């Protein structure tokens, strides 16, 4: 989960956890956008991490990401962030980054960092 969705009006797809009855969806092939049937990140071994200090905001990673997993933040501090629910860890973003601003870090290590950050916010159980 990224920090950039909150309060920004961004529509970041989220895993839908409440149960659906066929009557909730089968009346057309039209459903409110922004829900994932399942996340798509389980096979990622490396995770791209963007260095906000050196990122120039050129959007090359955003354009090249084959899964559309790099999104604009619409904020001033950094141009883009990685939607880790979608990212498969292929590393194309790191390859195309002309500024060396993306590093691929070990997913296990990154998860520990996530957990520590969540704990600091009091969300330890859910992380």
């Amino acid at each position: 989960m990224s920090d950039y969705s909150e309060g920004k009006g961004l529509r970041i797809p989220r895993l839908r956890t409440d149960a659906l009855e066929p009557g909730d969806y089968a009346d057309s092939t039209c459903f409110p956008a922004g829900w994932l049937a399942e996340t798509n990140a389980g096979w990622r071994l490396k995770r791209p991490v963007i260095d906000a200090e050196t990122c120039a905001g050129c959007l090359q990673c955003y354009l090249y990401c084959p899964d559309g997993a790099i999104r604009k933040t619409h904020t001033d501090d950094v141009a883009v962030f990685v939607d880790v629910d979608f990212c498969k860890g292929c590393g194309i973003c790191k390859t195309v980054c002309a500024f060396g601003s993306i590093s691929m870090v070990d997913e296990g290590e990154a998860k520990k960092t996530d957990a520590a950050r969540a704990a600091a916010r009091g969300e330890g159980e859910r992380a």
Partner: protein
Amino acid sequence: MSEKKFLSGDEAFAEGVRLARPQVISAYPITPQTVVVERLSEMVERGDLDADYLHVESEHSALSAAIGAAAAGARAFTATSSQGLLYMAECLTYAAGGRFPIVMMNANRSTCLPWNIYGDQRDSLSLLDHGWIQVYAENAQEALDLALMAYRLGEDARVRTPVMVCLDGFALTHTYETVDVPSPAEADAFLPPYETSNRFDFEHPVSIGYTAGPAYNRYYKQREHLDMLAAAQVVDEVEGEFARTIGRAYPGVVDAWHCEDAEEIVVTLGSIAGEVRDVASRLRAAGRKVGVLRIRYLRPLPGPEIVAAVSGARAVAVLEKDVSFGAEGTVFTNVNSALHRAGCPVPTRNFIGGLGGDDITEGQVMQIFDALHQVAGSDAARVPDVTFLNIADQGGER
């Protein structure tokens, strides 16, 4: 105030579409549908109809564009015929499965080979299973009125299904007759603007036209089926509202003529029904108890209505302009299924005529009634299950 005009079926249908105020029309011309789209493009050009008219490069694109328009929440219209309809076939299921209530006029025309531009019903009848409501007009007035009623029916929240209105090629599309054209105010009173949540735009982002795998697919297909079945009831409501606002009454999914006491009944569909009734009324005048059942809506299949109309008869013929090669006429199969499900034992026979525009004469219709008389009597075995009209040699035993 409505206006009396002398119009062909194609022209009358175009008037009906104009009154329905579609926002997008996408079409590719094909005989005998061409006049409809010519008239509509002229209406758009003159400003009589505020619509985007897309002259696309093929029928496949025509329906694809209509689907896109419907997915954006627009009321959409297209029209085609014969090979054009077959070329659209892939898109038919997209429109039906996506629950986009597009209205299409199909000018019923033969399918090749041999190449033939004349009327029969093999084109639409071969595509009964693609999720479209199918209704067959008898005359130009009904064609015009169906253009309006099709939108009201298809867009009903309980139905949300595309509607194919079929007009017999030439016999209906190119024949001129007197038609009462409602005023725009009358049409507007009957048909409100299209409103739906089944649409996308920047303010209401949705996922539309998506995948549904084995775990979910059956629910969609069952809903399509049940909603189409429910459309039969909605037809009655729509026609009631049409009679109230426009002042013309229609009889529901079937049109039964003197079936209540008839011993021999011809079941048919489309513009030939008028001629069959003409012959039947002469036979009635001569004391024969005959009836005519015109199927108006073939999807949803009006099973209970067919059974109710013919269950008292001693013999039933199905007269249709198509054949499912290696089986029998498609309408015959459908009628037999309805009768079998209801446990109705009336003997039935199939008469296939009018193929490739061949004229079905009053004499042939008389022969059908005479054959039914044999079936009802002691000579049933002498009348084959399937008879091709106007051919001396009926082929082998099987």
